[in-house]
């Protein structure tokens, strides 16, 4: 748990390092999803290292911890990168991503890593699980908050909207969704495959407090995460406008890198761009 004040510059430096880890672990694995990992990493960095979430790497199942669920489970390299940086898992494990006989599954698996809150990878499931945890906190009189990151393509799943309706109906103020709005899904641009617009109006209509931000601006991310913690009797969502592949020029808005690992040469180019 980070207790000292961290500067925006420090957070940006951490995010850059974690981007290096993401592309490196994917290149070593030889498969996986760079685009949605890179679009999400600034937000995950702020959550874990910006004095937002309470957690204890020596006790990952600490009852009072805040929960983070990566509902868009294919972005697991981003999750593993923050888990290693926070000390939940050794950094060397990152280089075992997707290898047989290791806990480093290709999608988050609670069975394999105690720091993972929900097994995901079948899109659409995470928000309901997060809602269940938020309700349990209320039943148990606990003060923890549940954060769930969902994808824009993932938002096409009906279950997301079932959870959205239920969360506002049950008035859970301790549930925060974060939409990684990177404008692409697997087959192409969201607007061409299946538009989710007007997405802000939809969440508002479902009874959620909504805040729109630039999901790569650390200041805006931190502000929004603090806004989400304000006491209220409704769930909150941060609609984060992001760039798929953010930080690596040839991956940005290039959906070829939705689910393709960088080659060795591409890795070197990416690492050069991400150098401190």
């Amino acid at each position, binding site marked *: 748990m980070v207790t000292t004040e961290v500067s925006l510059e420090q957070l940006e430096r951490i995010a850059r390092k974690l981007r290096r880890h993401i592309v490196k672990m994917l290149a070593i694995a030889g498969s996986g999803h760079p685009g949605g990992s890179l679009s999400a990493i600034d937000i995950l960095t702020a959550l874990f290292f910006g004095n937002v979430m309470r957690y204890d790497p020596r006790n990952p199942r600490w009852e009072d911890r805040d929960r983070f669920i990566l509902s868009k489970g294919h972005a697991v390299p981003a999750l593993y990168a923050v888990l290693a940086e926070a000390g939940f898992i050794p950094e060397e494990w990152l280089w075992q991503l997707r290898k047989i006989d290791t806990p480093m599954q290709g999608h988050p698996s609670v069975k394999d890593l105690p720091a993972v809150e929900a097994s995901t990878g*079948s899109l659409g499931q995470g928000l309901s699980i997060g809602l269940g945890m938020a309700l349990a906190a209320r039943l148990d009189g606990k003060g923890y908050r549940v954060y769930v990151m969902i994808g824009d393509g993932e938002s096409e799943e009906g279950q997301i909207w079932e959870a959205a309706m239920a969360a506002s109906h049950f008035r859970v103020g301790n549930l925060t969704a974060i939409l990684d709005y990177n404008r692409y*899904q697997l087959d192409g641009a969201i607007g061409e495959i299946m538009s989710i617009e007007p997405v802000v109006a939809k969440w508002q209509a479902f009874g959620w407090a909504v805040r729109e931000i630039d999901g790569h601006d650390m200041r805006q991310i931190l502000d929004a995460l603090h806004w989400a913690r304000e006491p209220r009797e409704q769930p909150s969502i941060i609609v984060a406008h992001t760039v798929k592949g953010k930080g690596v020029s040839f991956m940005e808005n290039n959906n070829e890198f939705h689910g393709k690992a960088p080659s060795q040469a591409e890795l070197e180019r990416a690492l050069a761009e991400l150098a401190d």
Partner: protein
Amino acid sequence: MARPLGEATREAYGKALAELGRENPDIVVLDGDLSKSTMTKYFAQEFPERFFNVGIAEANMVGIAAGLAASGKIAFASSFACFVMCKGFDQLRLAVAYSGNNVKIVGSHGGISIGEDGVSQMGHEDIGLALSLPGFVVIVPADGAQTRAAVRAAAEYVGPVYIRVGRPKAPIVYENGCPDFQIGKAITLREGNDITLIANGLMVAAALDAAEQLEQQGVSARVLDMHTVRPLDEEAVEAAARETGAIVVAEEHLLYTGLGTQVAMAVAKRHPVPMRFIGLTDYAESGAPEALMRKYGLTADHIARQALDLLQQRQGALV
């Protein structure tokens, strides 16, 4: 002994679908944001007006397919095997199986041979789910050629069909196409008297390799390609039981609900003989496809070992 690799069965599916599209304007195709993976993209490119990408919404996809079918279309709907079967199950039950709508579900990335993506993307129980729906024809083709034949047969057949295809390149079993393909008719790939190996999907090539290994040990193994799990070719199963007296079933699927259980029912009913079952008993994990197939026993070696063991057991019982 390793067979040359041919196209992936999902690739053959995509190509076959585009071919059918040229012949029959009533063929429509749906996908759930996986057209580049299920290979419905070939159809989409050629017939954009008859292709519906519904986004990441499998239950909705199955429902729309049912409506199209109820209005006279031949609807093929695809996603990964696990997503379309699990998320679309209630719709498959009421709007497709119970209603008898002419929907063809093709689930790609079946089994654990998808490799590194891991359990959440693997079809472990897709065939069992399809089998649990009355009226569903269930087909698991062995290679590209057989997939083309199966897709064609599914389009001609009136009623619900589930076809499972796979991600990796599949070893070639049918070098000259699969003209004898018929829904519900097993294909005898190898004659034998001592034991029968029954398999489908990728396990057919493994069973053929196992039969060659067994031959070197003086065991004559029959190999049946049971591409159709339902309706099961009970005649072929009974003949195998009568004539060889022992059966090993191999499948890339959980053992609780798949080819093995269907064959066992037929064997128990018609002519009980000792059997062995090769398949999964739990969820797998991430890893390289070949390494996973080895770790989870889905190999020719394992089939051959189980066959020898079964024969020994039977020998013991006879003495």
